[in-house]
């Protein structure tokens, strides 16, 4: 009985002491900090340049950073944060990642069988992983593992595709791709060129049916300056993009509407491309 009383008294006295200590020495935390943290995606992707979302929230509250710096926030979330902090959001354009290769197993030739570590970065150390095209997507999911939002999928045909609705444009995948295939493009762009091989058309068609052969058909079918040819590769001018209709003229279908990619093609449709 005596023990219970002693502990009770000790607890009360020490608890009172802690209460006093907090009152006099406690750190003052901005109540907005917790709120801002809650509004951030908390994926810790690092695209803002800070060490995770908590650090970014601290910088936001201290007015050391722009809310728009976070590419992963939706524009509503950015507005909410701005309202809370009383700042004006900068105009920003949402971006999405594009894997510039359309040569999946049904379209691109495999030159050899790769049986090593299942990671693109490892595969490029061993004769390039066995894909016939030395610039193509290896499909070993290094980018998919790097994506904090699960926006990249490796299809059954062995190629990486980006689900635009999940992609926030944080660019984490861009730097991990050993073939440098991933770029950020405006989410509003209607079409992308899914090929990044700088080789000549003849060399490309030998290894891949979905390669850009530099035929200029898309350039002719679009208005001036909307499509460009750089080397042996077509490129969409994202500042002045053509309509998605231009994709119809592409003989290899490497120029595809942006919305088409993630939608899995019908089996008949896929076979048609193979036989083309």
């Amino acid at each position: 009985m005596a023990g219970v009383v002693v502990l009770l008294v000790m607890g009360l006295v020490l608890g009172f002491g802690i209460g006093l200590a907090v009152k006099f020495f406690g750190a003052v935390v901005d109540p907005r900090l917790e709120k801002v943290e809650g509004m951030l995606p908390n994926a810790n992707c690092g695209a803002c340049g800070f060490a995770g979302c908590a650090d970014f929230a601290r910088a936001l509250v201290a007015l050391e950073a722009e809310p728009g710096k976070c590419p992963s926030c939706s524009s509503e979330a950015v507005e909410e944060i701005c309202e809370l902090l009383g700042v004006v959001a900068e105009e920003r354009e949402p971006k999405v990642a594009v894997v510039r290769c359309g040569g999946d197993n049904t379209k691109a030739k495999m030159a050899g069988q790769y049986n090593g570590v299942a990671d693109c970065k490892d595969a490029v150390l061993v004769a390039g992983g066995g894909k016939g095209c030395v610039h193509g997507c290896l499909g070993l999911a290094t980018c998919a593992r790097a994506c904090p939002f699960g926006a990249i999928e490796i299809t059954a045909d062995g190629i990486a595709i980006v689900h635009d609705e999940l992609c926030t444009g944080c660019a984490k995948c861009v730097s991990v791709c050993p073939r440098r295939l991933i770029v950020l493009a405006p989410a509003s762009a209607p079409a992308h060129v899914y090929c990044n091989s700088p080789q000549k058309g003849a060399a490309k068609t030998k290894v891949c049916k979905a390669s850009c052969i530099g035929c200029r058909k898309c350039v002719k079918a679009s208005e001036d300056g909307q499509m460009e040819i750089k080397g042996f590769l077509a490129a969409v001018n994202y500042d002045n993009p053509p309509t998605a209709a231009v994709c119809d003229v592409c003989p290899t279908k490497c120029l595809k509407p942006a919305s088409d990619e993630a939608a899995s093609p019908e089996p008949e449709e896929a076979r048609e491309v193979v036989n083309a």
Partner: protein
Amino acid sequence: MPDHIFFRGGVHPDDGKSLSCDVAIQSAPLLETYVVPLQQHIGAPPKPVVKKKDAVLRGQLLAEPGGFVSAAIHAPTSGTVKDVSECLGLSGTMIPAVTIVADGEDTAAEPLPVIENWQEADPDVLKQRVTEAGVVGMGGAAFPTSVKLSPPPAKSINVLILNGVECEPCLTADHRLMLEDPEKILIGAQIIARILGVSEIHVGIEANKPDAIALMTEKASGTPVTVSELRVRYPQGAEKQLIYAITGRKVPTGGLPMDVGAVVQNVGTAVAVAEAVLEGKSLYERITTVTGSPVVAPGNWRLRVGTPYSEALKLAGGVKMDPAKLISGGPMMGISVYSLDIPVMKNTSGILLLAADEVSQYTSESCIRCGRCVDACPMSMMPGTLSVQIENERFDLAEDWHALDCIECGCCAYACPSHRPLVQHMRRAKGEIMAKRKAAQAKK
């Protein structure tokens, strides 16, 4: 049995040398086109000095060194430059290359002036010649020889070791070279020794080449060269293991052979140096073993740089069955490639084909911590532990555990009962660690 010290670890793979070790070196007929890669060595890429439609002569400079650690590239025959573009390289990427269409005359360019009395020549003049001739290490690493011969003044070199071990299975190019050109090897060794200012010269040869040991010993009598018979065990011919076997010196971790006063050169490199000095010949051809059970007539050829693998295979009579695997180099350290368009380079010691029943497809399993890789590692590392860390992308831990000491000999992967891709893991880690160090240096 030789009484030399023996390194720890190592493995005993079937050496497969009987296919080609008795076949004398043959010269190859002239081809119509050669695709000469510009990056044939470790270090900075050289700068091309020719352009499209230029006429070139055999031995003429195609590209000059692009820095201190770099090497010149010379034309393998006379003809016209068709293109300065690119070709498929060993790493599966496109590398810059010069395509030469031969004119069939094979006219030689004016050779570099012959240095006849090399015994009295200025070491700097000899070193300059090695640089001009574009000599690189011909054992496989292709490190520019002139750099190896320019140790910083703080390091005193007192022993030169010639590497005639050829411990890599299936390869017999160095073996044949020692049997057919021992004089040139010995002269080359003495020229290198003169450049380095050393008097102690060893040639290390594995005991499975008794004919080469007998011949080299006979020819070396009366020269300052000592021939050492070494026990047979892979990787006896690895630089650090060879130094240990012959001198008992251990290269410290992260160090180079010059830290223990030694320089190692391949016997093929010695011949290239001798030819550069005595004949003024630049390095544009080498001995390559074309072998493997699917090959009709395995053998050793003197191939010019830029010869596509497909042409080399034709010389060996083609294939009698479908090969399942094509390897540039030997089975332990060679790189598996998938195209016969890849051209022969200065360091292509062998082209190996394997039949389907010789190639096993394994699925890698988890590490069972049996320690066989630790027993096999000649560098006293713990490959199993490292590979688990690397799988989890803990490259910082891998660095602490000395991943950079790995010589990629493949003994661990050979010994692993779980078929783990240990060498690939090590390579990945080495790449990541070097990239991190480079980034840290750039920041400073």
